[in-house]
């Protein structure tokens, strides 16, 4: 490709002959403007790539925490929710989220990102991976029993409509929640809660997996259905954590924002204390430090810090993460044993509950003069920001629960939401995809 060679001769030129060529050719101000754009460009594209990679993380976590007989189905769900979601977000989602607002509630132009310039393309790229993150969260909660076709339908709707609309409220710059001063830096609410509440609606509408809740002496009790591959689950968490540096740091949206470092530090510390918090809580609750809970704890810390990563101190981050870690264990237990809702990977607790916690936490821990959100309760800012944060969380939760319940209800009444019991027993790999994920391995399964 000619241009390759030419550019690189030019570059070599700089290195050798120094300045002269340059100064003559391009005006300084133009160069500075170009560089500013270049910073944002490479920063956001690299961050987007990192966030994309989180898809692999979700897939591995969900595969690891479920049974071998459904691994191929989970792969398909994770691959396809991104694929159909990206097309949906291209056609409709972006327009509803970032198009010209109708009263702060919904965007209304730029369908098919028509007329996009370089900056819009860059922003679309960064946003599409966030939309896909919200969509894919649900897959874990609905694992091992959902009809594949129904899942495809769900994926289109959440990426095209549900996620973008609440996103518009908060991130469009002209949304009603954003205008009220609601602060969600990288998406504890916009992304994670949306995914988490959709996961809740999905798992309620589906019902529990066969064998998850059984009568014992006339009482319904929760049974464990152990995941089949902890190493993959762990790998998934490490990938997610890695990708989260793109998720949170990239949300500065600017490559020349020196706040990036602070975001990276709070993210790191909250993830760490999240893991620690969950480990200790599981140790106390169950007598032994539980790996799958500790892994969930790291994610809980990450979800928790996502809203406030740009406005809290490192100490604030430590506390937010720690609380998220404790919360996730208690929430998993509560949802499983008290509410008896079957969420195989803990998606509701990690993304829904800790998403709310992280959003609220902004109102408590936001540093004075952070330039983005009102000062938190702890620093004497009163309850103002806290109230707005609570309102935002609640609004998004209501929106998502309402729409996804309707969505899943309609799916249930039309194409059906769940595979039949024989197919579930056999495993979705065989029944939905006619294949085996671990051909040759001897697997002992009596559930």
């Amino acid at each position, binding site marked *: 490709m000619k241009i390759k060679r030419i550019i690189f001769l030019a570059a070599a030129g700089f290195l050798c002959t120094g300045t002269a060529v340059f100064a003559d050719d391009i005006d300084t101000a133009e160069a500075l403007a170009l560089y500013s754009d270049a910073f944002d460009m490479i920063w956001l594209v690299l961050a987007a790539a990192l966030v994309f990679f989180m898809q692999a993380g979700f897939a591995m976590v969900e595969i690891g925490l479920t049974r071998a007989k459904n691994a191929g189905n989970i792969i398909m769900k994770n691959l396809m929710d991104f694929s159909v979601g990206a097309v949906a977000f291209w056609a409709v989602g972006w327009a509803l989220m970032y198009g010209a607002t109708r009263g702060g509630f919904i965007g209304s132009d730029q369908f098919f990102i028509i007329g996009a310039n370089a900056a819009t393309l860059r922003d679309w790229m960064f946003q599409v991976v966030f939309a896909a993150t919200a969509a894919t969260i649900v897959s874990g909660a609905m694992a091992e029993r959902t009809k594949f076709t129904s899942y495809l339908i769900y994926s289109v709707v959440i990426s095209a409509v549900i996620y973008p609309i609440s996103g518009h409220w908060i991130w469009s710059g002209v949304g009603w929640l954003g205008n009220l001063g609601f602060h969600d830096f990288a998406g504890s609410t916009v992304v994670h809660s949306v995914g988490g509440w959709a996961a809740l609606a999905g798992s309620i509408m589906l019902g529990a997996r066969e064998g998850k809740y059984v009568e014992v002496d006339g009482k319904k009790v929760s049974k464990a259905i152990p995941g089949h591959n902890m190493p993959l689950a762990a790998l998934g968490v490490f990938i997610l954590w890695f990708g989260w540096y793109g998720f949170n740091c990239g949300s500065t949206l600017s490559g020349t924002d020196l706040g990036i470092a602070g975001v990276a530090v709070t993210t790191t510390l909250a993830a760490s204390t999240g893991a620690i918090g969950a480990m200790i809580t599981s140790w106390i609750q169950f007598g032994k430090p539980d790996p799958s809970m500790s892994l969930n704890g790291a994610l809980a810390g990450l979800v928790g810090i996502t809203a406030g990563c740009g406005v809290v101190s490192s100490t604030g981050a430590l506390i937010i993460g720690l609380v998220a870690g404790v919360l996730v264990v208690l929430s998993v237990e509560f949802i499983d044993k008290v509410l008896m809702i079957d969420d195989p990977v803990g998606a509701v607790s990690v993304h829904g509950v800790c998403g709310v916690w992280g959003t609220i936490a902004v109102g408590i821990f936001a540093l004075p003069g952070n330039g983005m959100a009102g000062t938190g309760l702890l620093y004497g800012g009163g309850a103002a920001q806290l109230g707005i944060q609570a309102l935002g969380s609640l609004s998004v939760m209501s929106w998502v629960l309402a729409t996804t319940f309707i969505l899943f209800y309609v799916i249930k009444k039309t194409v059906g939401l769940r595979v039949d019991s024989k197919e579930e*027993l056999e495993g979705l790999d*065989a029944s939905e995809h*006619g*294949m*085996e994920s671990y*051909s040759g391995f*001897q*697997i*002992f*399964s*009596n*559930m």
Partner: protein
Amino acid sequence: MKLVTAFIQPHALNDVKQELYRNEIYKMSVTNALGCGQQMGYHESYRGVDIEVNLLKKIRLDIAVNEDYVKSTIDAIIEGARSGEIGDGKIFVTPIEECIRIRNGETGRMAIG
């Protein structure tokens, strides 16, 4: 003493165990097996090529019991494993000539339980 060997559907294992316990049979050995029988198998495909799967997942149970327990063992297995559909499996009874408990060298009827 007899060895009762049964090939059952994997998902029937829990029920069979429950029935055996109810009949006070607590000792058994379980193995993963693949079975080929009247239940003809099914078709999978891999990258567009058809695969005929006629070795289906089964579980093999081996239960050594004294003569007077043979019937209740068989009944318990049937109770737990019967769905009435093809593939429920088979039970075979074979003679055991001797049984030894490794831990203390006990033999015969004493050792089996």
